[in-house]
């Protein structure tokens, strides 16, 4: 087991970068879609053998035990080399929650299975009536002997059709005085008669989101994580690191690189209007990266990030969208064409970038919700 603490940040970056550069299969770089597990299974096995599946987890649970600075470096390099995050809901979401709030038995049983991807997790939070207003969720879980019995529906469940387990927020006390109270966090196996998964076809034709229906589905009582009716505060406690990660510059940087290659090949830079709009986008990305460094420095100094970190997500996702819109403009009459477009000996999938940019302003708390948060928590505006 390597002790990363003895490495400087630069040495660490070099090590990670070299590994992603030489070991990651080229045909999987910058995948335009979310892969099923089978597609990236070989890569996952190599990461697992190396002990690199869970960079943020403490070493005692099989993680890399990285501090915030090295964790950021790890993710920056991962994105720079177009390395797919894999089926990481287990590692990113449910694992940290079990580590923080789970019993010893839960840790012993679930954590190794997350690392090996023996269990593949999906996240059951959103419902048809609970999107931005997540606390409005209605899926019920009632205790029946040694089990919870679950009835209701989840939606926008990413890759549920390729998952073995779902971690979910369910209502366990419908009479609680506030809707945030009375919510619990459950681990539920999906291979049972009461669980039905239907894929949703997105506007780009992909099938990565699902609806999951629960009709008297069951899970043992010991699959409750943390206290009954305390699920809401637990789920929220997880989000602090996520919030800088979701605002990282890499998606926009990669798209800008693609835009430049494509626009150059297509001769779009001959047009002064295009040149100016490209320049605006390029400077938007550079200055965002400067702001990102400011927040990253805070993390590296061991400080906790405030609610103001949400501004990174607002800026970078909207910038990402503008860049992909410029790609479509540069494509001219090819702007509606599905699949890679050839420029010289390089191909750029203009539409797939455009589609990939659309949900970024919706997921992880829509940008409108982020603006609500900033206006109250940072600017102190009333009501």
């Amino acid at each position, binding site marked *: 087991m390597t002790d990363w603490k003895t490495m400087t940040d630069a040495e660490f970056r070099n090590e990670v970068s070299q590994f992603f550069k030489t070991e990651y299969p080229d045909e999987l770089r910058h995948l335009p879609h979310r892969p099923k597990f089978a597609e990236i299974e070989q890569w996952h096995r190599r990461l697992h053998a190396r002990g690199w599946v869970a960079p943020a987890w403490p070493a005692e649970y099989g993680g890399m035990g990285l501090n915030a600075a090295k964790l950021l470096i790890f993710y920056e390099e991962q994105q720079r080399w177009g390395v797919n995050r894999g089926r990481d809901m287990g590692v990113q979401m449910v694992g940290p929650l079990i580590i923080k709030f789970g019993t010893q038995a839960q840790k012993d049983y679930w954590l190794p299975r997350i690392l090996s991807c023996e269990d593949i997790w999906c996240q059951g939070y959103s419902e048809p009536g609970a999107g931005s207003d997540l606390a409005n969720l209605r899926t019920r879980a009632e205790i029946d002997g040694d089990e919870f019995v679950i009835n209701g529906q989840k939606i926008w469940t990413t890759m549920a059709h390729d998952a073995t387990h779902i971690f979910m927020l369910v209502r366990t006390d419908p009479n609680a005085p506030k809707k945030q109270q009375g919510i619990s966090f459950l681990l539920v196996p999906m291979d049972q008669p009461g669980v039905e998964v239907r894929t949703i076809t997105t506007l780009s034709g992909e099938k990565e989101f699902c609806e999951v229906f629960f009709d008297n589905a069951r899970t043992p009582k010991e699959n409750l994580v943390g206290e009954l009716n305390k699920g809401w505060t637990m789920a929220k406690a997880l989000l602090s690191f996520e919030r800088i990660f979701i605002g990282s510059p890499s998606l926009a940087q990669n798209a800008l690189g693609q835009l430049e290659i494509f626009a150059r090949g297509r001769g779009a830079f001959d047009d002064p209007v295009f040149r*100016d709009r*490209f320049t605006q986008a390029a*400077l938007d990305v550079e200055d965002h990266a400067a702001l990102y460094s400011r927040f990253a420095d805070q993390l590296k100094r061991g400080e906790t990030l405030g609610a103001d970190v949400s*501004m990174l997500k607002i800026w970078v996702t909207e910038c990402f969208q503008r860049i992909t819109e410029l790609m479509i403009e540069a494509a001219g009459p090819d702007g509606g064409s599905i699949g890679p477009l050839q420029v010289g000996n390089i191909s750029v999938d203009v539409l797939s970038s455009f589609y990939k940019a659309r949900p970024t302003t919706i997921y992880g708390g829509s940008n409108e919700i982020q*603006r609500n948060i*900033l206006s109250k928590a*940072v600017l102190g*505006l*009333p009501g």
Partner: protein
Amino acid sequence: MTSTDMTSSEQEDLRLLRESVRTLFARAGGSKRARTLRDAGGDFDPEMVRELAEAGVFGVAVPEDSGGLGMGLAAGGIIAEEVGRVIAPEPVVLTTGLSLGLLSRLCPEHPKVLQLISGEIVLAVAWQERGPGGAPADATCRYADGKLTGRKAWVVGAAGSRGFLVVAQEDEGQVLVLVEPNADGLVINKRAQADGSALGELSFSGTPAAKLASGNVVTDALAQAVADATALAAAELVGLSQRAFEITLDYIKTREQFDKPIGSFQVIQHRAVDLNVVCEVAQAGVREVLAQMDGETDSKIRARLASRAKARAVTAAKKITRDAIQLHGAVGYTDEFDIALYLNRALVLSAWLGDDAYHRRLWFEAREEEGSAQ
């Protein structure tokens, strides 16, 4: 370079510098002073210039062996932000960026260097010329036999200046000369600006001038000094934008309509958040540029960095001051509310040394040139 690359004692020095300049301006009356000076005719206050000098403001980026503090543009930017916050009319960026930027590079031993650092004098810099159509044009102002003939335009600080540093042409190339304010054959036309200041249009006919430096070194020093001043003007706009945003935020928290503060309406809240984000991005971008310029000697790269800063700061200041007027409603359109002073100052600072569209063009061209050189 990020802030973690800076040592904590450097960070602490910058913090102390910011506090001392902020206190100095606050004691002098903050943005109220800007209004008083404007109403009195638009000049800056020579006494304030001396007080700023005592705080080390003008020599901040001048190397220590030339009598400055040697703290670089990063520190100059901190000061410029504070100047912008109170829309002070004193020519801080002119002196630190242009006048001292030229002299400390070309003739660091000249007595004017210490006079500028000590706040004894201000020297305006005349380097641009107006073409027949009114737009900037190539320089034609001639220097021969100790005399200057021609015109210069867009001279900031011409009103209170104790002389002019003029970049002119001679047979061998560019030359930097010093012209006394009452020299023969010098005519100064002043054009009033939106913030109450004046831009000078100078005309020389056989005007006596003392040569300070000549040749390629002048061309290079001018490029470097203009880059310094451009980036510092960007920092001044960042400070201005931040304060304009704070004033607006206070206003929407207190102004009531429909029995509620208007800041409780979501449409106002989201607009306020957008201004806040624009402001923070500008501050982060401009500070990063200033720190990078301190570590860079190539004049083309420094110019590209300065263009990035000014493009960002102007875009932000335009957005913030104009939306600030809208969020103030009708009173925002009056002269009585300070927010109007911020809009007017932003107009002047945006136009000086090039606005955002101009600098985006320069930035793109510089990037293309660097790309094809590789």
